[in-house]
């Protein structure tokens, strides 16, 4: 059990002067040290006329001192995710000044001599904080929080896990500049009287080394929990780890075995958002799935298929709709995906609709679709149909140049880790047999077997294309180890696929005629494929050639369904 102080009372009631508050560069900082530093920041904020301050600092102890200093000076703290120039420019319109780590032209606030005036209790209804949605596309939206919302949530966390050891240190791999890190790494530890680490742990090596030192709680995110390094010795870390939290995005089930093996336990997963605060939690101790349980004091209901919540973490007593579809039952709920086209890439929320709109602004495209590609690292892929200008860029400067121009359209919208990494430029958006462009059709364009294709000319009976099978294509694996060549079946497969996409062929493959493979095709060869369709005979003649000469030719006959 811990001896909880509310955020309002933390400084007014206080703790013993020697009470451990933080660990910074291997040294303990006690409550007297915190009190002194908060008093210094309070003096600095109080001496300024402005009330709205942007706060950014990497050291979590300094951050905590500045935050409480601002609150005790009656200020409201704006919490940006980073201190980049774009963020500075955006904040300038909303804040009166900058505190913490900012370049000189932001004129960051200088800390002053501590003012010895006793601390009074904070007003729970004070407008204490403004947080931003995590890397959401477009302008990140600002979410104001009253102190009461934060205080209530901290109390809910303490009530949800009353049995965590009071003497455990709190370590984290997530930044306190987001609401999750702020609550779990700084505010909850301060209220519960647990010492927290001032430095953020960025690499698995650092996490293992820090955990090995003392009994700890770890505040982590899927980004790190998916990438625990099994080559490291986790034995001491495992013995010291009392609990590990994960939030910021879904933790894939295939990350669980490594967590259980290396950390000795499944993470306590937290579901919530910047707007709603914490909503629910679960721990998948031995199953791939488990229902989410509401945090203490959180009420749930389903309306229009989406989850609605009501809690003290919200600004008022109304129901607030999330964007998540759920299946709600007696034993908690299951999440069933987003209701809007928002995906999470490495914990950053991204609106696919907004990215598509920004891509179209380039003036180089007829159509654009952005898809989230599965894999160990979720990636965004772009399927874009260039217009004449776009194709000119592609043909004259190359695919990478077009990628770069389009990516530049998106840099202000999303953080680097969420930028699209796969680009496909088909001559038209792929459609299924009902004429619809489905997710599945779009995903098929990212199949690694698909060659790079450029349609040069096309009418009802003829087509000319450029094809290129890159050296990384799976077709070359083991065929052959020392001298890779494109298998004949792969050539024919793509002739048929492309012919089907270009001509209204009869459904059934009947036979191959006059097939010749005159010359092998090595990786990265720019091939020209000429197709001719004779509708009356249902046959497609093909020829593959390159600067090296003729590679293959033949005729494929199609017929009506049997």
């Amino acid at each position, binding site marked *: 059990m811990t001896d909880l102080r509310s955020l309002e009372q933390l400084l007014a009631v206080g703790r013993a002067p020697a009470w451990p508050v933080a660990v910074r560069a291997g040294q303990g900082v006690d409550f007297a040290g915190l009190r002194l530093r908060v008093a210094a920041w309070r003096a600095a904020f109080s001496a300024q006329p402005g009330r709205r301050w942007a706060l950014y600092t990497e050291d979590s102890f300094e951050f905590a001192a500045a935050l409480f200093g601002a609150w005790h000076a009656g200020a409201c703290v704006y919490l940006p995710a980073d201190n980049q120039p774009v963020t500075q420019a955006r904040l300038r319109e909303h804040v009166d000044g900058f505190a913490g780590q900012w370049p000189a032209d932001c004129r960051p606030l200088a800390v002053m001599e501590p003012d010895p005036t006793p601390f009074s209790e904070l007003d729970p209804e004070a407008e204490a904080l403004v947080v931003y949605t995590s890397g959401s596309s477009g302008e990140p939206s600002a979410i104001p929080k009253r102190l009461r919302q934060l205080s209530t949530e901290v109390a809910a966390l303490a009530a949800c896990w009353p049995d965590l050891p009071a003497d455990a240190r709190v370590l984290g791999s997530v930044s306190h500049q987001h609401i999750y890190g702020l609550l779990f790494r700084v505010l909850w530890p301060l209220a519960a009287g647990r010492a927290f680490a001032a430095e953020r742990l960025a*690499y698995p090596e650092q996490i293992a080394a820090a955990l090995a030192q003392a009994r700890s709680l770890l505040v982590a995110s899927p980004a790190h929990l998916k990438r625990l390094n099994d*080559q490291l010795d986790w034995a001491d870390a495992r013995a010291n780890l009392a609990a590990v939290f994960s939030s910021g995005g879904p933790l894939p089930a295939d990350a669980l075995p490594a967590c259980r093996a290396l950390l000795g336990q499944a993470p306590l997963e937290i579901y919530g958002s910047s707007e709603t605060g914490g909503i629910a939690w679960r721990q998948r101790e031995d199953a791939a799935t488990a229902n989410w349980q509401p945090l203490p004091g959180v009420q749930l209901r389903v309306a229009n298929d989406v989850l609605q919540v009501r809690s003290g973490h919200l600004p008022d007593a109304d129901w607030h709709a999330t964007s998540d579809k759920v299946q709600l039952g007696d034993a908690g709920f299951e999440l069933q995906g987003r209701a809007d086209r928002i995906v999470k890439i490495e914990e950053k929320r991204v609106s696919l609709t907004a990215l598509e709109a920004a891509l179209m602004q380039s003036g180089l495209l007829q159509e654009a679709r952005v898809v989230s590609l599965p894999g160990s690292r979720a990636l965004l892929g772009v399927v874009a149909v260039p217009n004449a200008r776009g194709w000119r860029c592609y043909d004259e400067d190359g695919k990478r140049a077009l990628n770069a121009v389009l990516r530049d359209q998106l840099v202000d919208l999303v*953080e680097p*880790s969420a930028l699209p990494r796969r680009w496909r430029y088909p001559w038209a958006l792929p459609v299924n047999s009902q004429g619809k462009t489905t997710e599945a059709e779009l995903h098929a364009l990212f199949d690694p077997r698909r060659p790079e294709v450029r349609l040069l000319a096309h009418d009802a009976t003829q087509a000319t294309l450029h094809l290129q099978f890159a050296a990384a294509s799976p077709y070359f694996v083991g065929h052959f180890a020392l001298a890779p060549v494109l298998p004949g079946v792969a050539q024919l497969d793509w002739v048929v696929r492309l012919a089907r996409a270009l001509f209204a062929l009869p459904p059934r493959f009947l036979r191959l005629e006059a097939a010749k493979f005159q010359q092998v095709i090595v990786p990265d060869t720019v091939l020209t494929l000429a197709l001719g369709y004779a509708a009356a005979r249902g046959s497609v003649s093909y020829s593959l050639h390159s600067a090296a000469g003729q590679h293959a030719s033949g005729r494929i006959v199609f017929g009506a369904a049997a």
Partner: protein
Amino acid sequence: MLALEQEIKGLVIESLNLEDITPDDIDTDAPLFVEGLGLDSIDALELGLALQKRYGVSLSADSAETRAHFASVRALAAFVASARKQ
């Protein structure tokens, strides 16, 4: 060292699954992160794991040192070469 730098360029492309880029497109001295190749902190994690697997070298728990190793392909190659000797 040249061969190791070339090998590391290949490892960067392979482990981060980069598209539309060959080892020759990567400048040995260009910053790998943010500018340059435009890689991010997640890539640093992935690359750290790949280096561990390929060369058995472990990054130091000191983040300033680690940041310096990731400055460029040249810095990474120097780090791998010296860490392997030990």
